[in-house]
C-alpha cells in the first residue's frame, strides 16, 4: 500500500496543494474522532443485540426441549441455568458486564462458552474468506484495470458481462453447480475436489495435510471468489475510467510516457482509492465468514456456526457471533475511513 502514497502528487495537483504538516496532525485527530464514533456504535450494538434477540419469537428453553415433554421443574432449572429467570434489567446488566469482560456466555446448545466456540471457528473462516478475498481483490483489480484501460474492447465487454452474471447468480446455486461438476464429476469430467469440511476424516500429516486442506479449499474459495470479485472489478473499472479523462493523464501522456507506465504509475494508484474502502469494508464481513458458502461445503467456520445457531435457535450463540461480526464491521469501516483519509489528501482538505 505504499505505492499510492509515493505517487500521490497528481491527485494533489488535481485538488490543489495541501499543507502537509497540519494534515498529519489532522489525521490523528480525525482517527481519534472516528475511533470515538466507533466506540459509540459498538456500545449501541451491545445494547441493541441484547434487546433484538429477546424480541425474536419462541421461548428458548422450550426450543431447547425440541418438543420433548419436560416437567415444570426441568423447565425452571433450565431457565435458571440460562439466567432467564431474572428480571430483564438484571439480565441486561449481566449481559453488558460480561460482554465488557469478553464473556459472551454459554451456548444453550453446545453447553460451552461462546467465545471458545468462536475461537475454534475463527481460524477456518479467516483461512477461507481471507484467501477468497485476496484472490477476489487481486483478480478484480487486475481485470478491472485492464477492462477500464481498454474500455469498449472485447476484453472489457467480456469481463464486465461475465462478472455481472456471476454477481447476480445465487451463491447457493453456483456452489451446488460447482460441487456437481468439479466435486462429483459429470460425464467425462471426473470429480476433482472434495466438497465437505476443511480436511479429510483420515487426514494425513505434514505437507500432505497442507495439500489436503488446500484441496478442500478449492471449491468454497472458487464459489466465494466468483460471486464477490465482480464488485472490485466494476469499482476499479469505473474509477479508472474517471481518472482516464483527467488532465494529468493527458499531461503524463504528453510527456511521452509509455502507455503502460501512465496506467501503472499515474492512473491506477488514484483509481485504487474507492477499492481500498471496499476492501476494508469487506474484511469486516470476512470475519463473519460466508454463511452460504460455509453451509454448502460444511466448512467449520463462523458462518456455519451462525447458521447452526439460527437453526436451533441458540440465542447466546447467535448473540455472540452477531456481536463479533458487527464489531468487526464497525472496526474495519473506521479503519477504512482513517486509511482513506491518510491516502487521499482530497479527503483531508475537505
Amino acid at each position: 500500500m505504499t505505492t499510492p502514497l509515493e505517487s500521490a502528487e497528481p491527485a494533489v495537483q488535481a485538488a490543489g496543494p495541501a499543507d502537509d504538516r497540519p494534515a498529519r496532525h489532522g489525521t490523528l485527530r480525525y482517527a481519534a474522532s472516528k475511533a470515538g464514533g466507533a466506540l459509540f456504535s459498538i456500545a449501541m450494538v451491545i445494547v441493541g443485540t441484547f434487546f433484538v434477540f429477546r424480541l425474536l419469537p419462541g421461548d428458548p428453553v422450550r426450543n431447547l426441549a425440541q418438543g420433548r415433554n419436560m416437567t415444570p421443574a426441568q423447565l425452571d432449572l433450565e431457565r435458571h441455568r440460562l439466567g432467564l429467570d431474572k428480571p430483564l434489567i438484571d439480565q441486561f446488566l449481566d449481559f453488558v458486564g460480561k460482554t465488557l469482560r469478553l464473556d459472551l456466555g454459554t451456548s444453550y446448545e453446545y453447553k460451552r462458552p461462546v467465545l471458545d466456540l468462536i475461537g475454534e471457528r475463527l481460524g477456518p473462516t479467516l483461512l477461507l474468506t481471507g484467501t477468497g478475498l485476496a484472490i477476489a481483490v487481486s483478480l478484480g483489480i487486475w481485470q478491472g484495470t485492464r477492462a477500464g484501460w481498454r474500455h469498449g474492447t472485447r476484453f472489457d465487454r467480456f469481463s464486465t458481462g461475465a462478472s455481472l452474471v456471476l454477481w447476480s447468480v445465487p451463491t447457493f446455486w453456483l456452489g451446488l453447480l460447482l460441487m456437481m461438476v468439479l466435486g462429483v464429476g459429470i460425464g467425462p469430467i471426473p470429480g476433482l475436489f472434495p466438497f465437505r469440511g476443511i480436511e479429510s476424516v483420515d487426514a494425513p500429516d505434514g505437507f500432505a495435510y497442507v495439500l489436503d486442506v488446500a484441496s478442500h479449499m478449492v471449491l468454497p474459495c472458487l464459489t466465494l471468489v466468483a460471486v464477490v470479485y465482480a464488485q472490485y472489478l466494476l469499482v476499479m473499472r469505473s474509477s479508472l475510467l474517471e481518472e482516464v479523462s483527467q488532465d494529468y493523464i493527458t499531461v503524463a501522456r504528453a510527456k511521452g510516457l509509455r502507455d503502460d507506465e501512465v496506467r501503472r504509475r499515474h492512473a491506477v494508484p488514484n483509481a485504487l482509492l474507492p477499492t481500498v474502502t471496499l476492501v476494508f469494508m469487506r474484511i469486516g464481513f470476512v470475519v463473519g465468514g460466508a454463511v452460504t458458502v460455509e453451509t454448502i461445503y460444511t466448512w467449520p467456520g463462523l458462518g456455519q456456526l451462525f447458521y447452526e445457531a439460527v437453526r436451533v435457535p441458540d440465542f447466546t450463540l447467535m448473540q455472540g457471533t452477531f456481536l463479533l461480526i458487527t464489531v468487526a464491521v464497525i472496526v474495519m469501516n473506521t479503519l477504512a475511513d482513517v486509511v482513506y483519509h491518510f491516502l487521499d489528501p482530497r479527503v483531508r482538505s475537505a
Partner: protein
Amino acid sequence: MRKWLARLAALGVAVLIAGQGTTAALAQDPSAGKKILKVGATQAMDSMNPFLAVRLVSTSIHRWMYGYLTVPDSKTLQPSPDLAESWTTSPDGLTWTFKIRQAKWSDGQPITADDAAWTFNKMMTDEAAKTANGPAVENFESVTANGQDLVIKLKAPQASMLENPVPIMPKHVWESVTDMANYDAEKYPSVSSGPYIAVEHKKDQYVKLQANPNYWRGKPKIDELQVIFYDNPQAAIAGLKKGDIDLIGRLSPPEFEAIQNDPNIEAWNTQGRRAAYLQINHGATTNDGKPLGDGHPALKDLKVRQALHYAIDKQKLVDEVQNGLAKPADGSIVPPLYKDWFWEATGEEKVTYDPAKANQILDDAGYKKGADGVRTMPDGKRKLEFRFSIHTDTPIEDKLAEYLTGFFKEIGITLTTKKLDSSKFTEETGVTGLFDIAISGWSVNPDPEEVLATHLCSRRPAPNGEGGGTESFFCDDTFEKLYQEQLKELDRPKRVELIKQMQERLYTQAPIIAIYYTNDLEGYRKDKITSITPIPEDKGLLYGGSGYWPFYTVDVKATSAASAGGGGGSNTGLIAGIVGVVVVLGLGAFFLTRRRKSTADERE
C-alpha cells in the same frame, strides 16, 4: 497469447507435481487395509453426553456406544435382552428385578448392577441429568443394586418398563461428574459397553467410533464407523454419489429420486416409522380446562372434522406430494411398520375420499353455502375459513397445503396457508393454540405408548404456559381410561388390544387426521457395503431404525491403499490437494513475469 500459453503450461506442471505429492502421501495412509464404514448425517450432534443429548443423530450414536437394559429384537422388535439378560416382575407389577449380564466395559472393568442403579439414581436426583430421558424415570420409586441384580420399584404399574430408553453409564467414570448440565463428555476413547467406542469427535465435522473388543455379543465385523456431518443435504447426496460416504438415511422423496438410478447405489425404500397428520384445533384448553388460543369455533364440531376427513384424497397426496413414496393412512399415528400395534379402520368406520358425503355432512349440520360458495356457521356469523399452519423451510408442506386447499374448496371451506419458523410453529401449535389446522408428524418407537401419551389431558400446557408437550390439546375420558388400563396391563396381547382401541378413539374423534405414513428412504454404496441386516430383519430400516442391529451386522470391503483418501475414484486423490501449490506457483509465476517486465520498463 504466447505468455498465457506459457503460464498454462506452468500450471499444468504444478498440477502434476502436486498430484505426485498427494499420491505419495496417500500411499502411507494409515486407514489402508481397514474396514471402515462412513455414514453421512445432515444433523449435527448436540452433545456427546447421553444425559443431555436429544437429537436423533446423537441418540443413534449413543445407541451404538452404550448398552441398555433391553433392545428391540431384530426380528420382532419386541424387547429382548441387552445388558439385562433376564428379568422378573412381582405379581402387583410394582417391582422389577433385572439380572445384569456378566460383561466388561471397554476399559476392562466389569459391568455390574451398580452401574445401572447409579445411572437411574443420578437421573432421579439431578434435574440436569433428566434433560434427555426424564420421563423414563418419573414413575420410579427407588432403584437399588445387589450384585448383578438391579431392583426397580415403581410408584404405579408401567407396562412399557421394558422399553426403557436410558443408556447404562459406567459409574466408575461418570460419578466424578458434578456439573452434569455443563459436562460435554468429550473424553476419548469413551468407556462404553455397546458395539462401538467413540475415539474422536470434531464438532460439526465427524465422529469416529471403533469396534469395542469387549462387546458381549462379540466384536463387530468392521474396524471403524465414521459419522460424517453435512450442513446441506445436497452435499450429502453428492458425497454418496462420489463415494465419500457409504450410507445415508432420512432422505426426502426428491433426494431419494436423485440416487435411484445410480448403478453403485442401493436405493433403500421401505416402510417407515413416521406418520404425517393434520392437527386440528378442536378447542384448545389448558390443563385446568380454560380455553386457549384462537381456533375457529366450527372445528369444535366433530361433524366438521369428519367432513374434512372425507374431503381429503389421501392417495392423491401420496402420489403427488410424496411422489408415491408413502402409504395412505387409514389408521392413526402408529405406522404399519409396527405390525403388532398397527390399527386400521374397516367397514362403516373407515373414512374414504368422498367429497359428496363431506358436503352432505356439512349440509345436514347446517353449514350453508353462501353466494361465493363458502359455507358459514349455522348461526350465520362466521365463514368456514381456516388457517393451515406449516413450516417456512419445508417445501413439501407448501405442496401439501396447495392440495388441501383444493380439496377443502370442493366442500365450501376456504383454507389459507400460514408459514411459521419452527420455534414459532412449536409455540403456536403446542402451547398458545393460535391455529386452526397444522401439519404434524412423529417418529414412533417400537412401543407407541409415548407418542400416544402426547394426546393425554395432562400434556396440555399449564395456565402459565408451562409444561405440557401436547400434540392435539386432546382431552378425552375414554382415551384417558384406555391409557391407564394399558399401563397396568402386563399381558402383551391384551395391552396391544387396548392400544389399538386408543388409536381407534383418535381416528373417530378426529382431533388429528392421519394422512399418510412416509416411507423410510435411505441409500448405500453397493460397491462398499457387502452385507447389512435391517431392523426388523425382513424388510426394515437401516440408519433410521431403532437399536444398533444394522450397524452391528454390517460388513464392508476393506479400504484399498490406492483410494484411501477419497474413497472414490483414484483421480480424486491424484488431482485433489493441488490448489495451494497451484495458487502459490501460479501467483509466483505471475509476479515473476511482472517483475521481469517492469525491469524491462525501467531499462527502457
